[in-house]
């Protein structure tokens, strides 16, 4: 049984079908990319998986949980984390504080221990910091630990955004264009981070990315969306040859 399965999901806004009967399956530990022209419905699909939107029809299942009507924080609790395309961090807080905040779902001590910083509160905070430090080490953010996110260059903020998702300790990581607007060198670093996240942490990854070179290079499987429909699916080399994909990308000439 696949870890994540999206079955015939249709998402309608008024008269516009953002997704029509989209089905997608992701195995545990897989790196699956979703590509497609602008407005194809890629981000809408991620929004459905992470609970921001609820599909009009169809079903989404993650492990034993039904996500079809789940709220974002329920999805998070099930082990799904997401890095946003338009960096969603607190720019007035430091990198460390942003990451610690991300771990708040894992904190479950009461008001009194919190006020006294004693017992469970102290232990939980120490554990949270340890986890966050591991993520900082993993994403090589040591030099920026105490810097305000708002003061960091764009490429680093993107890395913090991924780190924030990673700090949740997810089983499934949704990455929405983590490399958009980066320099070549920053892209190479990010690719290495993504591959390492999967190799070292065994995290399943669903990636939306426009850089086809990167997608073809690192994905196990690729889904191609166009006008809210899956037009092709399979290993990158097969998908790259698919006439429908060429048509969607290059136009009728192919």
């Amino acid at each position: 049984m696949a870890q994540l399965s999206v079955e015939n999901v249709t998402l309608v806004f008024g008269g516009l079908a953002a997704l029509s009967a989209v089905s997608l399956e992701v195995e545990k530990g897989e790196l699956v990319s979703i590509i497609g022209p602008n407005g194809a419905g890629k981000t809408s699909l991620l929004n459905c998986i992470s609970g921001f939107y609820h599909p009009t029809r169809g079903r989404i299942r993650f492990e034993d949980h039904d996500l079809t009507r789940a709220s974002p924080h329920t999805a998070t609790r099930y082990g799904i984390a997401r890095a946003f395309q338009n960096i969603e961090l607190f720019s007035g807080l430091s990198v460390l504080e942003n990451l610690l905040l991300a771990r708040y779902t894992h904190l479950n001590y009461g008001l009194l221990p919190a006020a006294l910083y004693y017992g469970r509160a102290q232990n939980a905070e120490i554990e949270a910091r340890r986890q966050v430090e591991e993520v900082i080490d993993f994403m090589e953010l040591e030099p920026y630990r105490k810097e305000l996110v708002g003061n960091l260059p764009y490429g680093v903020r993107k890395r913090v955004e991924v780190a924030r998702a990673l700090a949740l300790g997810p089983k499934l990581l949704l990455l929405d264009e983590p490399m958009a607007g980066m320099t070549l060198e920053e892209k190479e670093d990010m690719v290495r981070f993504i591959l390492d996240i999967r190799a070292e942490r065994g995290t399943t990854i669903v990636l939306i990315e426009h850089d086809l070179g990167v997608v073809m290079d690192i994905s196990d499987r690729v889904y191609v969306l166009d006008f809210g429909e899956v037009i092709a699916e399979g290993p990158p080399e097969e998908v790259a040859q698919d006439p429908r994909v060429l048509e969607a990308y290059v136009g009728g000439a192919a």
Partner: protein
Amino acid sequence: MKVMRPSYEMKQYTLPQLLKLRAEREGERVALREKDFGIWNEYTYADYYATVRDFGHGLLALGFEPGEKFAILADNIPEWVYAELAAQGLGGVSLGVYPSSVPPEIAYVLDYTDAAFVLAEDQEQVDKLLEIRDQIPKVRKVIYEDPRGMRGYRADDWFLSFQEVLELGREHRKRHPRAFEERLAAGKPDDVAHFSLTSGTTGKPKAAMLSHKNLIHMGVALQEVDPLEPTDDYLSFLPLAWIGEQMMTVGMGLTGGFAVNFPEEVETAMADLKEIGPHVMFSPPRVWEGIQSRIWVQISESYRFNRWVYEKLLKVGYRAADYRMRGESPPVALRLAYALAHFLLFRPLKDRLGFLRLRRAYTGGAALGPDVFRFFHAIGVNLKQIYGQTEITGIAYVHRDGDVRYDTVGKPIPGTEVEISEEGEILSRSDAVCLGYYKRPDATAELLEGGWLHSGDAGYLTEDGHLVVIDRLSDVMHTASGEMFSPQFIENKLKFSPYIKEAVVFGNQRPYLTAFLNVDPQTVGKWAEDRGLAYTTYMDLSQKPEVAELIKAEVARVNEELPEPLRIRRFVLLYKLLDADDDELTRTGKVRRKFVHEKYADLVEALYGQVDRVPVRAVFKYQDGSEQAVETEVRIHDLAPVPEPVGETR
């Protein structure tokens, strides 16, 4: 517990023997610290030795023979010194390779030194070794420290992790409990301990063979001049492949017994410096210049009132520094003013930098501008010049406290004899002089001719025994009219300008002097921003007419200090920064003059021609190996000849 203090008695031991002694006598004292996951982890001398011993057993299990070479390709991590001392303990030789080296450089060094084992820090370094694997058949095992991303390499038995070697070692120790210590006890102080690669401004690098005695003598002798406490702290953040860091971390560390701290990452070194607050530092000039220009940039971005206070108080600092560097006590009024300046500015400033506990700081490897020198003394950092070559374990001369001068490199440390040859070359003799170059008897004979270390530097001694270094003997040049000059001397004067990052002066057998200049992207970038001058790339910035005017003024200022025939007449602002990756600089940041001359031959000719614009085709290499060519035009800038003072003195 009696703590061992530096003494010449230590010269009867090898470095790992000295570590064992410390582990036995003062095992619970902190020897090393490393920041990991945001926390400073401490390791005592007992831990330090135990790891070295276990790693040594691991190497024994892997068949490491006496006299074999162990290469280390890593940033500053405790494993660097563990591996170094374990290899030395087994009668082997350690050697450091700069982690920034490119694969062909690494291939050359590993092949030339016959390295049998390599410690590589992480996947990045391992990948470099994989790329050159067919060129380094003598390397039997590659040990990696950081297992991250190494999963895919597990099947290849060329690789194993540092932890695995330790586990092998613990197993081996159960079966052969005395094996390491027997080999350790057999070590002699005159054995070769470490290869330090000379920076190689000319030709391929050579490995200077340093003995245990060399490193221990240097450590003891320097601490006789500048004593340190065993409770002191030191931050090891410059490459350990560099002799300066090697002498501080290993030579000074093991003889002095202070705690050596390793930063979290290379990029966090300055933040870690602040947290550690070391008692001693040794850095090349670029580090000091970098710190000063960072302060300068921040202050110039501050409010006008802050700037005003800063400048007033710094003036007080400068006046007091002039007294103190001569070892004199400033007048009472100045002392009071300084106390106030210290309280208001210098102390908080030093605290911000991590210099609050600094007893002394050293600079060496190249010349440091007088302005930078005075600045650090003004804020109360006892910065001193040291001088020495890799071949004399890094240091042989140092300023004494209260006798610091910009133009000298100080006096010999105890046990060092100095002489100036007839050609004006600086010769030294001491127990820190290396045993020669590995596999280069020809070069060794030249180096150690007549029992003296030939520095290759031209210099002289002042009447009161200070050594003055002029330049490399071979770098002294003559203009077409026979005027002698040292390009480096003039380059350094140019580089003292905050706006000039790098300079290369030409003029050998030419009618006049010219220069290539690199503007400093930080300071000039800030300067341009302040004036609302928009620029895109470094290339664009360097070719702005306004920038040219700024630099012209800087060059004119330097020209005023030079005799007429040695003034810079024309210069170009290079469209790219000289870079070690393009072979234009050595890994230690020295200009490869000949290479630069050949690479930019068109520009050099233009400097001596009639044209004032040269079309160039710049090729930029990216990290992925792709190239991009940019066509542009470089302007040649003329300096109006400085009018001779006429009539005024008549």
